[in-house]
């Protein structure tokens, strides 16, 4: 970590007017002009900073408490994930996908596996599809809990974080039960899932969901409608819908700006066309449409929707049956030539996987469209003009995971 700090590129000097007398009144001799401007301060936020959510570095130019310019700097967690995809076989690559967005590893597994299945033309059994859906939606809840909990921390509320983690812990227990890991699951495999749902798993999920919705109400009382929290987040970091589209935002950040766009609804994958669920969007309830509070609120609502989807998937889950497609093993040696792109709705937006196969055991090119990467790009457009405290609130509301930004 220390190396990455010293290796960081020097900050460019902020642009300042060359001639300090440029603003002097006409007809006045320049030497009587008194320059009373305060000095602009250049400050380095991250990569070691409590609220940059990992190793993001934002170079800030500030005038007192006001941010005049922001320059996000990424790459501290680059691990050549795409290049590795060209060197290991399709099956061996699944665990690497866990490590992009480590808070939503199930979703990454799914995106990659769907892309391989599309290229290899594999048929996934129905039971496996349902188990995938349940796992992915539980993972989405866990990821959103982390997002809203740490968002509380960003604006200075410590306790909601623990409440969110208490629920997240329960989900991690359920996911650990089915695949043995709490964070990097490697559960969704090419052609199906790693193993069938253990006995009692589904019943435990239902028990958890019953409790969970009440706990969300509690969370709303503690944080969502807290007056100080609303003051800190409403009307802050407003992203108009045109800007959101121009910067390629997806996921809750786009929906927070009011566009009802969700890949589960627009381009259903898995079995999402069989479930009834709403796509919550921001409405500017507490302030302007597209502010930090709206993005936060969309996440809160999405957790309830995910719970709904989970219930329906459990109700429809077929008894018994295969959980793995046939003819998967040959992928370790050869695949069909071709290419394919699959985009799924990750908790952070559109997670896309583009794969080119030349027929060998590994891909010719794997390319990841990481939602956090695109969402992050809007920072330098919306940070200038806000205050230092707002900057923290905005970065938190974008909800980035650096593992996915840097890959």
């Amino acid at each position, binding site marked *: 970590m220390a190396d990455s700090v010293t290796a960081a590129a020097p900050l460019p000097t902020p642009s300042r007017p060359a001639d300090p007398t440029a603003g002097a009144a006409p007809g006045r001799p320049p030497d009587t002009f008194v320059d009373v401007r305060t000095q602009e301060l250049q400050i380095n936020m991250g990569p070691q900073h409590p609220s940059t959510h990992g190793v993001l570095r934002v170079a800030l130019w500030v005038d007192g408490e006001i941010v005049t310019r922001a320059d996000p700097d990424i790459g501290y967690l680059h691990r050549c994930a795409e290049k590795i995809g060209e060197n290991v076989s399709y099956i061996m690559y699944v665990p690497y996908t866990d490590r992009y967005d480590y808070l939503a590893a199930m979703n990454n597994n799914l995106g990659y596996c769907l892309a391989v299945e599309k290229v290899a033309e594999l048929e996934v059994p129905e039971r496996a599809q349902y188990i995938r859906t349940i796992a992915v939606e539980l993972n989405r809840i866990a990821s959103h809990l982390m997002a809203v909990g740490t968002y509380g921390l960003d604006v200075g509320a*410590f306790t909601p974080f623990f*409440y969110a983690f208490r629920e997240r812990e329960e989900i991690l227990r359920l996911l650990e039960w089915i695949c043995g890991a709490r964070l990097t699951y490697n559960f969704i495999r090419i052609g199906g899932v790693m193993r069938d749902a253990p006995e009692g798993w589904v019943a435990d999920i239902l028990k958890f969901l019953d409790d969970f919705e009440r706990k969300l109400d509690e969370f709303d009382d503690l944080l969502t409608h807290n007056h100080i929290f609303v003051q800190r987040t409403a009307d802050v970091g407003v992203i108009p819908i045109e800007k959101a589209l121009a910067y390629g935002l997806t996921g809750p950040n786009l929906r927070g700006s009011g566009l009802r766009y969700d890949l589960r609804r627009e381009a259903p994958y898995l079995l999402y066309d069989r479930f009834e669920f709403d796509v919550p969007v921001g409405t500017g309830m507490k302030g302007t449409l597209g502010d930090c509070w709206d993005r936060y609120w969309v996440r809160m609502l999405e957790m309830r929707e995910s719970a709904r989807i989970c219930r329906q998937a459990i109700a429809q889950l077929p008894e018994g049956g295969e959980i793995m497609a046939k003819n998967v093993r040959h992928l370790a040696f050869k695949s069909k030539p071709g290419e394919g792109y699959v985009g799924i709705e990750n908790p952070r937006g559109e997670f896309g996987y583009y794969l080119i196969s030349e027929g060998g055991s590994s891909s010719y090119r794997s390319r990841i469209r990481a939602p956090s990467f695109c969402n992050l790009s809007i920072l330098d457009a919306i940070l200038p003009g806000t*205050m230092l*405290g707002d900057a*923290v609130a905005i970065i938190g509301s974008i909800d980035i995971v650096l593992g996915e930004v840097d890959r």
Partner: protein
Amino acid sequence: MDTLVPHLQSAWQWATGSAFAFSLVLSILLVVAFVSVWAMFAVWLERKASADFQVRLGPVYVGPFGLLQSLADGLKLAFKEDLVPRESDRFLFLIAPAIAFCGAFAAFAALPFSPAFAAVDLDLGLFFVVAITAVGVIGVLMAGWSSNNKWSLYGAMREAAQLVSYEVPSALALMVPVLVTGSLNLKEIVGFQCAPIDAGSSGAIYLSANGWLALYSPWTFVAFLVYYVASLAECKRAPFDLPEAESELVSGFHTEYSGLRFSFFFLEEYAMMFVVSAVAVLVFLGGWQPLPFVSLDLGGAAGNAFFAVVFLAKCILLVWVQMWLRWTLPRLRVDQVMVMGYKYLIPVTLGALLLMALYAHWGVRYIPGIV
């Protein structure tokens, strides 16, 4: 010290002078001991309180109920390396924690714990406490400036702005009860609150004429609320913890400090929490009297000890409320803190002060014509 000089003129007077010096040293030692024990207890209480709010256990292993955890932490801090950043202003950096601590520490001298337990009985006690606690900000400013760290500087500047803004409403709010009692002596202010309803009454328990000042009139109640809110800001507690706002400024002004020097800032914070709570208790909540409208008159060491326990219990309760707020509320933004101080607290206090002055002039306590 001027008073010491005539004492030295004769042997007899020299003896009394040394007794005075001895009592002075003894009271300083007592205050130091009290502040240290208090800080350890308060840290433990904070950790237990936050654990209760956050569905955790808090410290459990070191000592009964984890009570000795603070001692263990203190030892750990004492043995840590005393780091001084190379590019810092060394002298200011080293002296800043002591100055920050001095302000809060000196205030203890003027706090009466019971009718007889007080290091010094100052006629201007309340004024002294308000003035001396403001000294701490100089230490914080020095720490922030000398650290040669931009985040520290931010913390120090925020602290200075915040303290200067909130001294005004808190001092104005304290003026309201002073207006009623006509005294700045903390003992006399408590004495006003437990004055008997008829002067001739005697006995251990009697009805008080005025009762606690917080309940004395609507305007003193408003003053109490304003003082409590402003005092949160003065001791940098949430939701006004901007000088050390962790998510924004890493650790604010004490980012670069380690070991014992860091612990002095820590001590200062907890000492300040006690001081502001103690002032609130003494001025608004009847000091060492356990009940609002019924007062006790107990003499002797036992009576004084009982009063001191009551006083401490009230202080701990107010400190606990500070902790409760801290672990419940998010943090305000820096401009919102200023808006709160200048646009709401100061006008409200000025209004309360004016109305209280008029009421005191007419000799009424509540709403004329209604109560």
